[in-house]
């Protein structure tokens, strides 16, 4: 019999899915978005279904290569290739954001390639977290609201926004509770399963997502997937959507227990306040939530997140990943390297292409990394005396 995690895994592997199909039959419209800085509540309050864009089921970048170059990222090219092939024809609109240079240019390419999506909107997200930026971001949220109202002939009331906020907060809370279970010594859910879950709940109506999450929470209660000897890792990076990639890492003898990923903690970190002006509260949450390197001057908070979970989740090491040609995560790697060296956190920096293969190389690097941590731990505890050539007694 299929478990709920098998179902979410199946949903994660699809571009379109039966839940969206059912919603469409009821006359609901679906809006794609790319970035965790996009406030889903505004779309939901307009009666729309937010759908996180994904490259799953992609069959290459041949068509997108006519628009992008060889030094643009694979996630964007794979997604755009799907769009050109008509795989996103079920969308009634797409809201783009200036998450990075590659995705912000998709707004341009999408318009000029005449894919035919009826509603296209560019949503500006500031690169700073301060009062001035919040004010401007609130204005942008207002512009998105007006644009949706005008195109879809709906009225987004404060009551509707409050209702949406409440639903999305519930979803966030459930996700946070599921993630928090990984603090335990016996971990009930793998990172690959969680990624499947995240992909699923960002591709279905929020009401369905809440049902799925409730079921998953019940299902994993008392479940143990980790082994006592598994090392506990933190993972951070940009776009990761291959479940197999995380499985490959976890099958090397570790369990990923915490993260700072788009399809991870960043998605549910911090709730929207339920007091005051709802649009302003939404702006505040989305601008101020756990950031990625696109937010300037906020590295300390990202580092604090790692240091916090290191203690709380008993992290043995960290992996930071980037896709090729990603300037944002490329520079973040420098910062992680510098800080992990200063603070003695074992760190593995990986670079790869999305759906780009190279599993053997990645496996070797992960195995070597885990072996190094084990040797260091064993040596530091005085159990084993010779580990690696780089061993330096404390």
């Amino acid at each position, binding site marked *: 019999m299929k478990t709920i995690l098998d179902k979410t895994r199946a949903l994660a592997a699809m571009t379109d899915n039966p839940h969206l199909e059912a919603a469409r039959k009821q006359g609901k419209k679906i809006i794609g978005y790319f970035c965790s800085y996009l406030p889903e509540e505004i779309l939901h309050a307009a009666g729309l279904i937010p759908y996180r864009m994904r490259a799953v089921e992609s069959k290459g970048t041949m068509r997108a290569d*006519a*628009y*992008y*170059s060889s*030094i*643009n990222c694979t996630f*964007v090219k794979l997604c755009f290739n799907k769009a050109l092939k008509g795989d996103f024809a079920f969308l009634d609109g797409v809201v783009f954001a*200036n998450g*990075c*240079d*590659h995705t*912000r*240019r*998709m*707004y*341009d*390419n999408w318009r*000029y390639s005449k894919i035919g999506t009826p509603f296209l909107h*560019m949503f*500006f997200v*500031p*690169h*700073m977290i*301060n009062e*001035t*930026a919040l*004010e*401007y971001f609130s*204005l942008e949220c207002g512009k998105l609201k007006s644009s949706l109202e005008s195109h879809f002939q709906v009225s987004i009331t404060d009551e509707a926004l409050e209702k949406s906020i409440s639903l999305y907060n519930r979803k966030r809370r459930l996700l946070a509770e599921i993630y928090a279970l990984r603090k335990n010594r016996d971990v009930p859910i793998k990172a690959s399963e969680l990624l499947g879950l995240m992909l699923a709940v960002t591709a279905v109506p929020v009401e369905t997502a809440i049902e799925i999450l409730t079921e998953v929470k019940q299902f994993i209660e008392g479940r143990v997937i980790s082994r006592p000897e598994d090392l506990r890792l933190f993972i951070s990076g940009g776009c990761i959507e291959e479940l197999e990639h995380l499985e490959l890492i976890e099958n090397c003898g570790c369990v990923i227990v915490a993260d700072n990923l788009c399809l991870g903690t960043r998605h549910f970190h911090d709730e929207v306040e339920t007091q005051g002006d709802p649009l302003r509260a939404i702006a505040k949450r989305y601008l101020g939530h756990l950031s990625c*390197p*696109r937010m*300037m*001057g906020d*590295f300390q908070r990202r580092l604090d997140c790692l240091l916090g979970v290191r203690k709380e989740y008993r992290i043995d090491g960290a992996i930071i990943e*980037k896709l*090729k*040609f*990603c*300037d*944002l*995560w*490329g*520079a*973040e*790697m*420098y*910062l992680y*390297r*510098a800080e992990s060296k200063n603070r003695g956190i074992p760190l593995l920096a990986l670079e790869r292409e999305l759906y780009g293969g190279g599993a053997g190389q990645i496996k070797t690097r992960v195995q070597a990394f885990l072996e190094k941590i084990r040797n260091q731990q064993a040596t530091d505890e005085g159990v084993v005396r010779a580990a690696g050539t780089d061993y330096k007694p404390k």
Partner: protein
Amino acid sequence: MKQPRPFQYLKWSADFLNFGYYLTAFPNLSYWALRLARPLYVRRETFFNRKFRYAALILGGGILPPEEIAAYHYGAKAFVDNMKGALKANELGRPVVWVEWIISSEIVNAFDALPFNPETLSVFGNMSGEDVPSQLMEEAESRGFAAENCSAIKVTAGSYMLKQIPRPTAIIAGSHPCDTNVSAYQSITHLTGAPAFYFDAPYWRDEDAFDYYEKNMWCLIDFLEKNLHQKLDWDRLKEVVENENRFNFYLQEICEMMRAIPSPSTMITPVFAWVVREIAIGDPNATEMARRIYEIVKARYEKGVGVVKKENIRVLWWNPPIAFFAYVFKWMEDEFGAVVVKDFIGDVRMPQIDTSSERAMIRDMAKNHLYLAMARQCHGPVEFILSELEQAIEEYSPDCLIFAGHAGCKHGWAVIGLIKDFLKKRGLPSLFMNMDIMDQRHATEDDIKRWITEFFRSNGFV
């Protein structure tokens, strides 16, 4: 390459420019000296050629006429003052504020502080003939800077790591034009430990966007007052901005006059002026240089005389000029009679700044900054690029376009298909070069010469 001594490259650049400053005080003498020595540093690849070609060609290489050399004299002075100020800053205890290359430094000039462009060596580092920028980039990469980051910022990091530029008291950077600026300046801040102010460029260019950027400007003033422990001198700022307005006026006029056939100016002049602007905006020497060049170009324009004897090809140059091959425009003029009549960086189209009140000055400065080269084209939708290209094709009568595809500009590469389509529709022959404007490891001077030569030949221009 050997590890340099602290400040070796900056000192070398300052000394060379200082020599250039004195030499250009005698423009006729320097013109003939450079012209007679030209076969030594241009034609063949010799030790002497490698060592001195870049520096000699920067000074005009015997092609720039004496009157333009006389104008460059003032630009050289502005460079020298800034570099010497940087070299002496520690000794004098003067705060040094790093102002990243896409941000303008007027406000820093209104404090008792030295604005310093930390990317300086990406251009001037080449003057030693020793490929200094590559060494600096390799240093940054070897210490963890991402290979894909823009080479300009890798040069900054490498310069700091090898102690070639002064330690910053504060840093001013921004979110435009690209992701490297957004992310790698966080690494630079971490590396130096200096407090940083980040400008956040809006996506659109409307009144809301100008409001937002204006607020950024006010925040910058607060930041500098706090970190420099000084108050902004508004009278000084007004003086700087008035100089800047004149500077921009002259450059804008020069760019307008370049629409004429034949073009009365070489694009190398506005590009050189852009470098001067980066380092010393508001400096009376910079303004004097612009005024003199304006007078020269205007005289040629009125006489209907071109900058080259026979203008064969009119070129649009898209993306920044090549730092390690800065004289590429002169080389094209010399070899093919190909004149770059409009480019991405040198073209000035900033609005004038109203200095009637403090508020008006800051407001207009915000607008002005969003019209600076690169900020103007790169921070918003592709129409910011296409409309500028459209206008250039309409107004400058180009025969072709050369796209210097800088590896760091991934936002530009991300709309390369749209740019190609647009140019195809306009029937403009175009050359797209895969290269890096500061990093010869991607494509060398020889590669670029070969590509351009083949492009001109295959399109029947030569």
